[in-house]
């Protein structure tokens, strides 16, 4: 692999690692979501430094030019990360749906209770604020 490309790959994966670590340090990033990013940064860095491994991998799957193998692996990580986020988004939208539904129920109960209180419903008054 040409030196220029190797330097570029090392700088890029180092940059990625530093940014992710910094985001985690500032608590902008939940560790849960940082793990995949860190893993991809570490693997890409290792492969850019360790030329022999990259060449072995590349020739094993029939890639003539080793840096292309690096691209392929990086692309694989991107796909996995995207899938991971789709899962996270699906879970969040399920959760927000449930929250919205529960909120609607609670608001209705609160409105009903307030209305009965205003109407001076004795039974409700006792239940909500028991006489001392």
């Amino acid at each position, binding site marked *: 692999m040409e030196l220029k490309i190797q330097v570029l790959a090392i700088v890029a994966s180092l940059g990625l690692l530093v940014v992710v670590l910094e985001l985690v340090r500032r608590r902008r990033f939940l560790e849960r979501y940082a793990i995949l990013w860190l893993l991809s940064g570490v693997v890409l860095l290792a492969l850019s430094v360790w030329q022999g491994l990259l060449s072995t991998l590349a020739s094993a799957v029939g890639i003539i030019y080793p840096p292309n193998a690096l691209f392929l692996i990086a692309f694989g990580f991107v796909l996995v990360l995207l899938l991971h986020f789709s*899962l996270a988004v*699906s*879970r969040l*939208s*399920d*959760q927000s*749906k*449930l929250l*919205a*539904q529960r*909120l*609607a*129920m609670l*608001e*209705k109960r609160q409105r009903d209770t307030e209305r009965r209180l205003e109407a001076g419903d004795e039974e409700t008054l006792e239940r909500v604020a028991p006489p001392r």
Partner: protein
Amino acid sequence: MTPVNPDRSYLAVVPAYNEAATVGRVVRSIRQRAPHFDIVVVDDGSTDATGPIAEDAGAHVLRHPFNLGIGGAVQSGFVYALDNGYDYMVQVDGDGQHLPEEIAVLADAMAADPRVDVVCGSRFLGDHGYPAPVSRRTGIHIFAFLLSRLIGQRVSDPTSGFRLYNRRSIALFARDYPHDYPEVEAVLMVHHHRLRIREVPVRMLERGGGVSSIRSGKSAYYMIKVLLAIFVGLARARPVVEPGDDAPVVAGQRI
């Protein structure tokens, strides 16, 4: 009129999103034609006066803080029915398409066969001549054909939301109801859970106002989404969260 069983409680759920033009009429009409039904309008994040109008007309109102879509709205109805111990729940759309006088037809079918868990009003059984555009009818017939093969029972109108549910089906759908365009997938769920569904012929109108949840530009997306839902539903390892399973919010495996 159906003879009303006074020991049973009945709930009509009216999902409504920006239906201020029609929801008042729908609620009053249900009160008049099906007086033994309590009415809850699910105001699905409307930006118009749907909620207050429904309340003035005499309905209970559940207000979603933002729009969840028809599936989320109807599911709120199921949860309300379950929480308040209703024996039967009917869905009547807020756009005036479903006729409250036809609720009795559904209730009769439910009373006639106690093994039935869901009674579905169909536009295409009998000779009611539903005035739908050809494109929409074609789509519905494709779903009908597929579903009928899949569940081994003739389904003529799988997109109809005009349905009456008993306690078992209420409990099922309160736990898990499909998201975007739920009716077709719900038929499949009923089948998976070995509940029974029956169709009866009803009349329906074209929408009285507002905008359908299925806009014409979205109909291709609708077709694809529902077809996907049918096939994914078939392949789902665990169709619905059962008591004791992981919490339902983790069930985000649905694509």
